[in-house]
């Protein structure tokens, strides 16, 4: 074991091993009791009855509910990811601008959208905008708009700290060979910042994918709406449906997270810039 945790306790000797074995047995039995208790609670409520779980073995359940919902979720997530990355890039550069009339408004926008709950923005676009524009706003637009503004602002901060972490010599050298400000940003700073911040960026995209479930609240036919709400309305199996759909979300996010870890390993193989160890610890925010 090489994890940092491994040093928290001595290499177990014979007595410690015996004690650990006893503790393992005791805790294992306790854990099994909890599992059994949950199983019993489900059984008492009749939640293991085959008819509740059988719909998941039929192809029509998947083709009518789960897969269309999954596609809608992925569509909303993909579009929001692209827009959020663009938003983040623009506002990160804007906030770093030397002109105060650019950097101050950009900073206010980023801080504002980071502080406002995503659901509030979605509600504003979905329920509020129709009163202003006079036409209905599709739930899809509301969800994508909310996800873009919120995650774009978080990404803007990630990009900004990434750009600031690129060693000063890089931009000085770029200016010295006669590049203009925009070229320094585009050719020198952003590519390095993006590489430095890649794990954070992918982490935020996982958050974004998960946040699409907020679409359920405004009746967007995404995975949770179709797979849990509509499906259980038809088959009366809300517990089973919620568990199956949760498993799908967990698998999707685990794959994306694994991808992030892979990218992190890969980028740490590359020659490190000097600033890398000083990178601010930034954990993607666990919104919704």
């Amino acid at each position: 074991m090489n994890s940092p945790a491994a040093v928290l306790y001595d290499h177990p000797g014979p007595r410690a091993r015996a004690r650990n074995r006893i503790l393992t047995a005791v805790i294992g039995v306790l854990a099994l009791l909890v599992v059994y208790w949950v199983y019993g609670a489900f059984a008492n409520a009749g939640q293991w009855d085959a008819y509740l779980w059988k719909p998941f073995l039929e192809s029509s359940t998947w083709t009518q509910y789960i897969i269309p919902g999954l596609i809608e979720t992925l569509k909303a997530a993909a579009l929001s990811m692209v827009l959020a990355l663009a938003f983040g890039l623009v506002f990160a550069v804007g906030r770093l601008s030397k002109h105060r009339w650019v950097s101050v408004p950009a900073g206010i926008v980023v801080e504002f959208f980071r502080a406002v709950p995503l659901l509030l923005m979605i509600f504003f676009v979905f329920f509020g905008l129709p009163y202003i524009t006079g036409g209905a706003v599709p739930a899809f637009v509301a969800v994508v708009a909310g996800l873009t503004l919120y995650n774009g602002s978080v990404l803007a901060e990630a990009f900004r700290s990434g750009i600031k972490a690129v060693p000063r010599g890089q931009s000085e050298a770029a200016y010295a060979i006669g590049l203009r400000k925009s070229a320094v940003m585009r050719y020198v700073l952003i590519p390095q910042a993006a590489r430095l911040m890649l794990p954070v960026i992918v982490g935020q995209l996982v958050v974004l994918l998960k946040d699409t479930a907020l679409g359920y609240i405004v009746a967007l036919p995404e995975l949770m709406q179709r797979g849990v709400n509509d499906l259980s309305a038809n088959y009366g199996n809300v517990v089973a449906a919620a568990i199956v759909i949760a498993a799908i979300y967990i698998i999707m996010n685990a794959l994306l997270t694994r991808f992030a870890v892979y990218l992190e390993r890969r980028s740490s193989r590359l020659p490190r810039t000097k600033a890398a160890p000083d990178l601010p610890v930034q954990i993607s925010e666990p919104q919704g």
Partner: protein
Amino acid sequence: MDVFTDPANLEAYRQGFVWVLELTVVSAVCALILGAILAGFRVSPIPVLRWIGSGWVNIFRNTPLTLIIFFCYFALYSTLGLKFSNQVTINNFWLGVLGLSVYTAAFVCETIRSGIGTVPVGQVEAARAIGLSFFQVLTLVVLPQAIRSVIAPMGSILIALAKNTTIVGTIGVIEASTVMKDLINSNGDQVIQIFAVFALTFAIFLVPTGYFFGWLSNRLEVKR
């Protein structure tokens, strides 16, 4: 007429944010305690505890909070009959706290664990050398230093928790976002003012909180 001059609306606005505050504080306490215990599990010498810890984190961190809250209400309460109180609103409040806590605890656990990684090996080796047990090493030496190094990310988690409380509106707690939705639907001519007031209330509380945690983390950082 301005929507916020109506005392009924003003009261709804106040009550909405009181719910947000209560949900945040209660869930934060539960999540911090639970998260610290889970972090202890994840670094413990006993494999079963490590499995429980990592299972918890992988399940709850990767499930959308909306789905967890939904599950608390429709599965735990409606189907399985879990009940905290006979009063409907209070019961929904605690179901919301349950969902928010188990979800946030997963993030707290991971943050504390990353903090444990920042404690120098020498600290732990010294603690072990004077004969402290695993539990003593963890609670007396490692956790106090680990927590001080993760104040800033912990602050973001708590801020995210405050924003996440709006999701509890889906199970019938009339918190800020639900109040805003209702006000918008009954005052279609003042949509922008309504959104501005609710959004700015969040911003006024949460932006300084973010800076406060930044300041606190600088202040409490273990200087090495």
